[in-house]
């Protein structure tokens, strides 16, 4: 059965909340029912039929052909199924997602994967700030799942990360792993200032020595640990990276000593 495809008719003149377009929410709906789903807010909130032309029937596989920076919350609350977006999108993609997979073939705005607890989000382009981070007023960020950014990410990657893996493959901005509670963040490429600032536990894994560390991270030598080999293999097996990240005997910093000092930064030596 062909994937349920939403082809963009024209760039909308308002921000749209695409939360209703998850596989579980669309299953069992007729085309006319889907076309009447409301995506826009306000006095003249747009309906699905105003923005997209529909084709295909397999609601478990949703394809959005044509993106817009005004498409917010794609895959929000999703628990199963697949969504693929061919284009750029707005903020909060995969927000509070607990299962399934979202593939974005372009760039995303802020808070991609915010608060997700399961599933897999893959962003082929760049992501904005606060990847996996909480929105205003929330106490925890991402709580599980895998979030991959194949391009660059902005500041505050993995803010308040509690569980799960975030991988950024072309570098990130400042404060990666800010207020991390646990979990793992992988960054290949240049890392901005103060990675791990206020982190309590968890691991930041880099392919090079970080340049601007807080003085509350102290060098802990080059321990021979099994974890680096295991995790390198996991990254390659899951098609997250195409070669080992840390190698044997990675360098290690411990911190953030301003908090509990139980977090770590592991990096590949020699770069």
């Amino acid at each position, binding site marked *: 059965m062909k994937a349920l495809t939403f082809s963009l008719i024209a760039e909308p003149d308002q921000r749209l909340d695409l939360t209703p377009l998850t596989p579980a929410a669309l299953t069992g709906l007729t085309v006319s029912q889907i076309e009447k789903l409301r995506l826009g807010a*306000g006095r003249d909130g747009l309906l699905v039929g105003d923005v997209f032309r529909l084709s295909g029937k397999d609601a478990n596989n949703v394809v959005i052909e044509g993106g817009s920076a005004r498409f917010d919350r794609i895959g929000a609350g999703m628990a199963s199924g697949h969504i693929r977006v061919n284009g750029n999108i707005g903020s909060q993609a995969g927000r509070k997602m607990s299962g399934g997979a979202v593939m974005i073939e372009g760039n995303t705005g802020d808070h991609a994967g915010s608060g997700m607890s399961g599933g897999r989000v893959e962003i082929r382009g760049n992501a904005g700030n606060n990847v996996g981070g909480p929105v205003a007023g929330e106490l925890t960020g991402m709580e599980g799942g895998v979030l991959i950014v194949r391009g660059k990410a902005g500041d505050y990657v993995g803010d308040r990360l509690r569980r799960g893996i975030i991988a950024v493959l072309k570098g990130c901005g400042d404060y990666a792993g800010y207020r991390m509670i646990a979990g793992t963040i992988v960054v290949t490429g240049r890392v901005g200032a103060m990675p791990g*600032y*206020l982190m309590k536990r968890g691991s930041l894994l880099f392919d090079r020595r970080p340049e601007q560390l807080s*003085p509350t991270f102290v060098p802990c030598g080059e321990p021979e640990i099994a974890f680096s080999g295991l995790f390198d293999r996991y990254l390659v097996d899951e098609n997250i990276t195409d070669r080992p990240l840390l190698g044997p005997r990675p360098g290690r910093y411990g911190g953030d*000593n*301003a908090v509990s000092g139980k977090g770590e930064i592991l990096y590949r030596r020699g770069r």
Partner: protein
Amino acid sequence: MSVAWIGSQPVPLMDAIQKAAKLLASSHCPVFSLDADVHGTRSTIALAERLGGAFDHVYGETLAREVALFTDNGGMFTTPGEARRRSSLIVLVGEIPAPHHDMLLAWSNTQPDLGDGGQRAWFHIGGAAPASRATRQFNRQLKTVPITGGDLPLSAVLAGLRARLQGRQVTSPLANVDRLGAALNKSQFPVFVFSSTSGEAAGLAMLQGLIADLNRKGRASSVFLPADDDAWGTALTSLWMTGFPPRTGFANSLPSYDPVRWDTQRMVRDKEADLHVWVSARGEMPPKGRKIKLISLSRAEAPTANATVTIAVGKAGRDHDGVAYSSRIGTFQALAATERSSLPSVSSIVQQLARALPGRQDLPC
């Protein structure tokens, strides 16, 4: 003197009200950038709610950074009066905005009459970024003891200080940490004074963590000095009315807070809004070059450039009485007019706009 214009033509006030009301009624997504006293803010927010619009402060970018400290982190705060009377140890953090210097200099001429009764001591935590001339002079007048770390930025100094005060290892030395540690042990109520201009959000979160650490053994707090008192007053008024700070929208009739989505300047720039209502009792002008219908309620003697409708309004505390936030007392205060004029208040104009809309209902405030 004319107080209302359609385009650049002076018109009677009621004609301008009718024209503005037509624009508001036909707008699909009106946004409000406001800068007014409490009454003007309340009326404007009520109008935005009725029209399903969004609102932000004119200084929304600065205010959003200040609000983020509270929404993303939280902290321990006290009032300036409590700090002045009770604290024998004041620690300034980063750059304190010049409008607050007088208040702090006044504190330096007094001694706490409550608390431990000790002589008041002053410290300053600074980063590698060069301080402004005003701040350098201010610190000299207060005779602050500097806490610095060479090339370290402020957020790194705060992190290092927090670790050192807990007896943990750091990789860079900090000046005068032991002296501050001794002063903290001696003082019963140390107070850290900071502003959103003091440093990045992460550094201010570290500062609040440091204060939380101190509260495990004793008592410590902070005084937050906003970059702009009127903007902070708008934030508090908005919280009181909607439960959220500015950058709140009423798209689904209920208020929703989103500092990115409801950034009105961004909405205007990205053409997500079709009508911009600019309210500035201080006479601030909207950014130029925006091709969007504009209603301007501004303290001006001439029409606002590119505005479809301009109505001149007065400023609370100058043209008419009003209520505004004062960081000196840490709450709202009544303001008496100093140069009473015939310029209408923001609140009265917004009320007239509401009455001119279809349905002709008064606003609740």
